[in-house]
């Protein structure tokens, strides 16, 4: 099998194994796995609106995991994308409802750029500086900053400065001039998809076709060699975490401006964590991130219809997803068992040889 073929086959095999195992668990607990899976698929891709929703659900994952992937590529683990996503959403929302008189072509970029900057500062500048200058481990700093961001978000909404007039802890709706148009009516799919695709292309080009990306990767693979080659390693650490935050922040703003239109306490359901899994699954490859995100989103949207049609709890989706990721990680399993089989076969034949002589 060629390497490219293998890269394609292994995740597929993992998905199939995961689905079979999930099916067995469902069957044991008294559900009908086949029906459930049909419902899952229908829920994800059964009609144009479902397809649109599946793609829409992938947008925040794409943007956030692109960010996480950049950090991974530099050898850094940005575990706090969730908070950067929040910060981006917060700033995007604030700009989105505060300047209703701006024309859309200024208002939208304004909100997006604001969100990106905020995410970048939150994820990059602070943990990056702490890492570069005092060696504070980025896993801790990004995680702590993330919790802080979410608490600030709640503070803003719960009787705080961003709460809309009235009773509910939610921000005002962003003005139409800061709303990303919906592409397919009755669905969540907004023009945000173009931003996500553009981000994939940009990240791909930056990483693999610019000197900046080359240096990022060098620092990631071998900081010593980077240093000896005259690269400013601490600076690239900051860049990397910063970009990571920029993309997560963008993700948050795009979600608000395209789907939610206002900030609420529960607007994110842990995209920042799911995105870690997505980028790992995609081996930090920007293009693979697209497919991995769609896959995750399909599981999530499909699981809703699966619930309705076959009563399977959505927690089952998490179980199946966990199993799938497990088998992606254990890609050597297949060759391991093949090897084992061969070895035992060989051992048996050898033994035969001995007994014959």
């Amino acid at each position, binding site marked *: 099998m060629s390497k490219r073929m293998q890269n394609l086959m292994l995740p597929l095999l993992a998905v199939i194994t995961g689905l079979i195992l999930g099916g067995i668990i469902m069957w044991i607990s008294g559900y009908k796995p086949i029906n459930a899976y049909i419902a899952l698929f229908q829920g994800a891709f059964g009609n144009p609106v479902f397809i649109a929703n599946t793609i829409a659900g992938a947008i925040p994952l794409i943007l956030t995991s692109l960010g996480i992937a950049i950090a991974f590529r530099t050898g850094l683990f940005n575990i706090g994308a969730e908070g950067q996503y929040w910060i981006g959403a917060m700033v995007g929302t604030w700009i989105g409802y505060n300047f209703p008189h701006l024309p859309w072509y200024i208002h939208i970029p304004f909100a997006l750029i604001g969100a990106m900057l905020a995410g970048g500062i939150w994820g990059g500048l602070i943990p990056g500086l702490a890492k570069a200058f005092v060696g504070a481990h980025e896993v801790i700093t990004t995680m702590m900053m993330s919790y802080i961001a979410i608490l600030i978000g709640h503070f803003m909404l719960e009787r705080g400065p961003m709460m809309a007039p009235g009773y509910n802890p939610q921000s005002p709706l962003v003005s139409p001039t800061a709303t990303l148009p919906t592409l397919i009516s009755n669905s969540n799919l907004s023009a945000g998809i173009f931003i996500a695709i553009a981000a994939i292309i940009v990240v791909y080009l930056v990483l*693999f*076709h*610019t*000197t*900046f*990306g*080359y*240096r990022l*990767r*060098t620092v990631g*693979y*071998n900081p*010593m*060699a*980077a*240093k*000896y*080659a*005259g*690269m*400013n390693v601490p600076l690239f650490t900051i860049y990397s975490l910063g970009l990571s935050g920029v993309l997560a922040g963008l993700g948050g703003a795009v979600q608000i401006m395209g789907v939610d239109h206002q900030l609420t306490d529960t607007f994110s359901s842990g995209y920042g964590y799911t995105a870690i899994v997505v980028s790992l699954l995609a081996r930090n490859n920007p293009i693979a991130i697209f497919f991995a995100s769609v896959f995750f989103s399909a599981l999530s949207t499909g699981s809703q219809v699966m619930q309705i049609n076959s009563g399977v709890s959505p927690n089952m989706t998490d179980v199946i997803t966990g199993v799938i990721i497990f088998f992606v990680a254990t890609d050597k399993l297949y060759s391991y068992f093949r090897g084992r089989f061969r070895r035992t076969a060989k051992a048996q034949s050898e033994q035969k040889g001995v007994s014959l002589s």
Partner: protein
Amino acid sequence: MAILEIRNLRKVFGSVIANDEVNLSLEAGETHAILGENGAGKSTLIKMISGLYKPDAGQILLNGVEQHFANPRDAILAGIGVVHQHFMLIPALSVAENVVLGSEGSRFLFRKKDAIEKVLRISKELGLPLDPAIKVQDLPVGMQQRVEIVKALYRNARILILDEPTAVLTPQETEELFAVVRRLNQDQIPVIFISHKLDEVREIADRITVMRAGKSVNTMPVADATAKELAQLMVGREVVLETIKTPAQTGNVVLSVEGLSVRDDRKMTRVKNVSFDVRTGEIFGIAGVDGNGQTELVEAIVGLRKLEGGKILFLDKDITAESVSGRIHRGIGYVPQDRQRDGLVLPFTVADNLILRSVGNQPFSKSGWLQKKSTRASAEKLIKEFDIRPPLADAQAVSLSGGNQQKVILAREMSREPQLLIAVQPTRGLDVGAIEGIHRHLLSLCEQGKAVLLVSLELEEIMQLSDRIGVMHAGELVTVMDAKKATRETLGLAMTGERVEEGVAP
């Protein structure tokens, strides 16, 4: 009867036949050398003897009894002690912990005091003094090797195998090692000694086995072997052993170091008031026992380390405050000591590694965009010029052998046409063929009127290549002498800190 006998041993890794029909016999009390090019299969053989690899075919016999080592523990119990080519020490642990690890000798509790005592006793018996409480990461390589030897003997080794032990040693340390080997031989402990260095082998060994391309091609008593013959057996072709050096046409000063003092990471002053010049067209060699400040000196010159005092002038310009990349652009090339750690990005392709220090320059990039075509074209040219094998620009650096990795680094640095090339241990661990190539490249630089600062622990190499030689000891440049007048003895003396009369500070 032979203590250890190897019969038709074979080991295959995927498509690489690392060992095939290897035969060897080791007699009591002898030192048996194994000679062979890089990749000849020496280390693989040792790993099978020590239980790390399982042979695919063939037999290992100890005192006539066939052995089937399932793991290194079996081999240790059978009395085989190995000092691996890449030291198997744990830097974060102390010497004593490293020595007793795995055979602590107590039931459950780790008894630190006992371990320290045992280490002291063995090192005293061997005449290899060691501080057992110090962490291995704080030891120079020569000392680390002592730890390895003590470690093997602590486990009651009845056969000692040394895989390329002298590659990291100074002449003095090598002599000390040889003394230990002779003492072991007297105690009837045979030693297998692996090396590329013909003269050393001829000095210490009783018999020599030559390996080539995974096979043992010949075994002979040392008296019967000439250097030329051995080299020919190793490589399978005729080798020019002496590099012919024409006297330098020296010109202007390229690098001038004035009163340099440098501290190490632990704030110890490691370079003290060092001054010297390097001129166009010459190779300035720096000799010295490892750990006498050479590393810190070089790191200061390339900009990786702050100065405690002094000045560095490059082409008459004060570059003391300049960044690493600034110095690179001014024309300083650098071949670091540890090629994998500092010199290469192993997952990158050869082509990408070749632009590591010039990625921001034309023609490799244009306004921030990588120019893959130019990169590739230049890579292909360099691969041909430096004979990098396999000749694939897209091969990952990690898949290259050590010698070829070194060629990549040298090609990269030379392709920048530096005014000054600083090369630290450029031929460490390489075979004769590869060394020959690298030496040729260094000399050609001088012929083009560039300057070379060569730091090496190999006296032969320094003496062969340099025009002038500086010797460092305890952070000081104790002498600078004309290479023509330098002898092993005078250099060796200077390396111990003796000031040599003739040495005139520049």
